């Protein structure tokens, strides 16, 4: 019996220490784990921007301008600040205003020159009729707000 207790205690303590070690490591390398940075992080100078990086957020409403040769300009926002993005190429199907987006590229003269655009899908799933009904009844705002809150664009 005593040996069993010893082994169980050993396992529990071992797992506790391991979890603590993992937490410390993950906190220490947090900057390299994040997939993208928010416009606020970039504008506040939290990270160096003279390198390849990813900017993520929502496509700002009314900011999309389509130019010639499939060039598109828009702003990525985290609802606190926004970064202008320019991209030439095919956009993902889910690309739309107020939708999540992640752009990869680098800064040139204050504009983010993206060479890859990924759509970030949110966690809301519903049939089209329900989406229409929500929009008609004015409850869409609530969903969009929860989307913006939870979209990790802080």
């Amino acid at each position, binding site marked *: 019996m005593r040996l069993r207790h010893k082994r*169980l205690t050993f396992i529990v303590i071992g797992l506790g220490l391991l979890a603590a070690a993992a937490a410390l490591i993950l906190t220490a390398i947090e900057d390299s784990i994040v*997939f993208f940075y928010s416009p606020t992080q970039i504008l506040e100078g939290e990270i160096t921007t003279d390198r390849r990086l990813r900017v993520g957020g929502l496509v700002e409403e009314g900011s999309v301008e389509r130019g010639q040769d499939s060039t598109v300009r828009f702003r990525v926002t985290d609802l606190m600040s926004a970064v202008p993005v320019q991209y030439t190429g095919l956009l993902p199907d889910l690309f739309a205003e107020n939708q999540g987006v992640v752009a990869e590229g680098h800064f040139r003269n204050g504009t983010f020159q993206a060479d890859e655009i*990924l759509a970030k899908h949110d966690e809301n*799933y519903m049939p089209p009729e329900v989406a229409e009904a929500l929009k008609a009844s004015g409850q869409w705002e609530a969903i969009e707000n*929860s989307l913006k809150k939870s979209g*990790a664009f802080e």
Partner: protein
Amino acid sequence: MDAAGKMFLKHANPQRFLGLSAVVLPWAAGATVVLVTAGVYLALFASPPDYQQGETVRIMYVHVPAAWMAMFCYSIMAAASAAMLTWKHPLAAMVAKCTAPIGASFTFLALLTGSLWGKPMWDAWWVWDARLTSVLVLLFLYLGYIALHNAFDDPGRGSRAASVLALVGFVNVPIIKFSVDWWNTLHQPSSMVTAEGPAIHASMLAPLLVMAGAYTAYYVWVLLLRVRGEIIAVKIRALQMRQAGG
């Protein structure tokens, strides 16, 4: 604790398990067939397309339960490994060992279907974000566990080494679960656990839950089959040893 442990040991001896599992086995098989049939029908025919994803949303009914089972199976494997190391119980060792390939298959299915969904939705088959990477690590942990189990001539040593790996790797399970909350990821956060309740419409939640039930029944079914096979293999080995010895 010890009383509970004794109760557990009394009811979990391999001979008793053969009797009990023979009763449960046809029910688990039946539940799997019924739930898979109902789930596939609901997921592919009787549920609506999504307002953004269109028909692609149907991949979710295969992908999400597979990802849940990948983490669930690993948790079972880690718990059984802890029980095996603590009480040296043969049945716990068998449950851990037999869960590994099933969990690895669910993990592979989750990665594969996720990739197939990612291409049309994100415009990328794969990205190295925290969620995708930690699930890939989970697959490697499963494969490492299986490899370590078979790496020793003495099955007991293989089982102990693999159990330690299973326990160490358990740290990864909460990392997978909370990766989408802790870090910016391309993968969306959970639709089930949100402050406002599930962010998924009832007409899509129902097929998802039926599929989750189907996967669970399938796991129970295959696990029982495998553990029974394992017990019988041990018996055969013991008989052969006795014959060779006598």
